[in-house]
């Protein structure tokens, strides 16, 4: 189902004279049917608060949550048919894996409950789906973290939810398992086509699994979109910095020979032409792999730091002592000269915290 969040606001009254705190500040966005969205942002941004509000676990003061265009407010959480995977998995420790998974079916009134054979079949199907066949008799404490996670997911799927909510589902897993479970969740989503919303503070994770990102900060939605568009058109420097490593070059825009150009303060960085920008101070920000080293254009020194993911890592150091790491894109060889300048023309320009233009 599609989920539409419409100016959702949650306020908690401040204690002992402090002002009220806005946990959610008129949050609005839409998750299309069948898509995989990620609520992403630093801790304290309001991601989990929002997710719990969608599930009906936490209250809010104003705004609406619409499911397929219909208001969810009047639905009790137990009637919403939402699959929720908690950060702690919240498995029932006194039940076997199979009983955990069948819980949502076992508790149905006798008139709606499938026959016990049918329930058994469904549990086996789900165990198969999560790659843990024959584990139905195990107890939660006998499972590894990744296995518990998948059982929690199977339990949520057993009630055939219309929407799947995942609250930091990979947070408690070690890095290797995390990557494996992550791609498995992505595959599962593609197979089931179930609308899914994931909460994470890890931008790599969000970029890896989700096709739609909702970046949050201080209870507000800063920007929504897919990874590529957020990277290309970040509304604020925060988004660019949050989504990955950045290099920053302060400078100013002026007119030279009738052409608007950005002149970095760092003499090693070369000016580049810009369009539709009024003169004044600005900040150029770009990714380490977007910067090019140009021979005979500056006095910075460099040295190789080896390879990462097939890209050569270079440490550049200016005569003023500033230094940073750049990545050479594939096909580019390290410069022959020991002295280099920087081509930063792929940078996004910001003034007063807002995007000015985008380099082509």
């Amino acid at each position, binding site marked *: 189902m599609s989920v539409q969040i419409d100016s959702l606001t949650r306020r908690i009254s401040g204690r002992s004279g402090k002002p009220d705190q806005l946990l959610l500040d008129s949050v609005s966005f839409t998750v299309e049917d069948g898509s995989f969205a990620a609520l992403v942002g630093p801790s304290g941004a309001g991601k989990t608060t929002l997710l719990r509000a969608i599930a009906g*676990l936490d209250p809010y003061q104003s705004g609406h949550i619409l499911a397929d265009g219909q208001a969810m407010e009047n639905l009790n959480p137990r009637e919403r048919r939402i699959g929720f995977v908690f950060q702690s998995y919240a498995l029932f420790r*006194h039940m076997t894996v199979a009983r955990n998974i069948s819980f949502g079916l076992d508790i149905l009134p006798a008139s709606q409950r499938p026959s016990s054979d049918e329930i058994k079949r469904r549990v086996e199907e789900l165990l198969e789906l999560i790659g843990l066949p024959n584990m139905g008799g195990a*107890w939660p404490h006998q499972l590894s973290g990744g296995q518990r996670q998948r059982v929690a997911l199977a339990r949520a799927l057993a009630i055939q939810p219309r929407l799947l909510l995942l609250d930091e589902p990979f947070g408690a897993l070690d890095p290797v398992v995390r990557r494996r479970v992550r791609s498995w969740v992505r595959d599962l989503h593609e197979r089931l086509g179930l609308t899914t919303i994931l909460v994470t503070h890890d931008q790599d994770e969000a970029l890896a699994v989700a096709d739609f990102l909702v970046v949050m900060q201080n209870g507000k939605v800063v920007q929504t979109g897919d990874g590529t568009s957020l990277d290309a058109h970040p509304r604020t420097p925060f988004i660019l910095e949050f989504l990955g490593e950045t290099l920053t070059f302060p400078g100013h825009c002026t007119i030279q020979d009738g052409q608007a150009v950005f002149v970095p303060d760092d003499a090693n960085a070369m000016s580049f032409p810009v369009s539709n920008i009024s003169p004044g101070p600005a900040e150029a920000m770009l990714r380490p792999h977007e910067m090019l080293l140009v021979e005979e254009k500056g006095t910075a020194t460099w040295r190789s730091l080896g390879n990462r993911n097939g890209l050569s890592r270079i440490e550049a150091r200016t005569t003023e002592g500033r230094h940073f790491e750049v990545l050479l894109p594939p096909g580019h060889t390290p410069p022959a000269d020991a002295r280099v300048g920087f081509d930063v023309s792929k940078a996004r320009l910001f003034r007063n915290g807002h995007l000015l233009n985008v380099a082509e």
Partner: protein
Amino acid sequence: MGVLMLWLGLLVLLPLSALILRPWQDGTAAMLATLHDSRMFAALGTSFSCAALAALANIPAGLILAWTLARVDLPGRRIMDALIDLPFAIPTAVTGITLATLYGPNGWIGSLLAKIGIQVAFTPAGIVIALMFVGLPFIVRSIEPVLRELPLDLEEAAMLLGARNWQIALRVILPPLLPATVTGFGLAFARGIGEYGSVIFIAGNKPFFSEIAPLLIVVRLQEFNYPGATSIALLLLIASLICLIAVSFLRRHVSRGLIVGDTP
């Protein structure tokens, strides 16, 4: 170390060894003869059954109180918290005369019950009431910490899976509380079979009807029947020790995760 051994030896080991050795002093036959005492078995039966009944009756009350203390954030919670320990703070003799007066034929509650034809004082029911009062804190304080530790997201998960409140209570909350409840039961029961001061005033102490084992010890002592008194005492001691060993065994295994599993 020396102080410890001396203190422990003089105050605990020496008198307890007297209790254990004394019954055999007049020969095994004499010891076994004391066991042919139907009044003793009646008294032990009364003590055990009343203690078990009281501890059992305390379980629902204890669960509700523990829930309120651990989960419901209403004004007055701290006052309730302090009140739970009241039965422990009031000396047993004071409890005894108070309950006897309260449930006596002319008492505030006793007179009300008399109108509907129920007599509590001077019957085993009175013993159960007294033991409930004394045992309640044990049940509440055993369950409460476990309930406090029980993550709220278990309930939320169950609710989102469609469970109604009673289903959540029955299927999700109560099973993990079971070991703690049994622990509380065991502690209250162990306390109940030995309880004296709070019971004797309300019990009526009729032999073969409402006479508890500790009182029979006192009676035997007044008859200068030391072997008789000692064998009852020994049986009581063994019973409460078995209870406590069972409780500590249960606890160790719970903490090892054999019963409810370890924390994820």
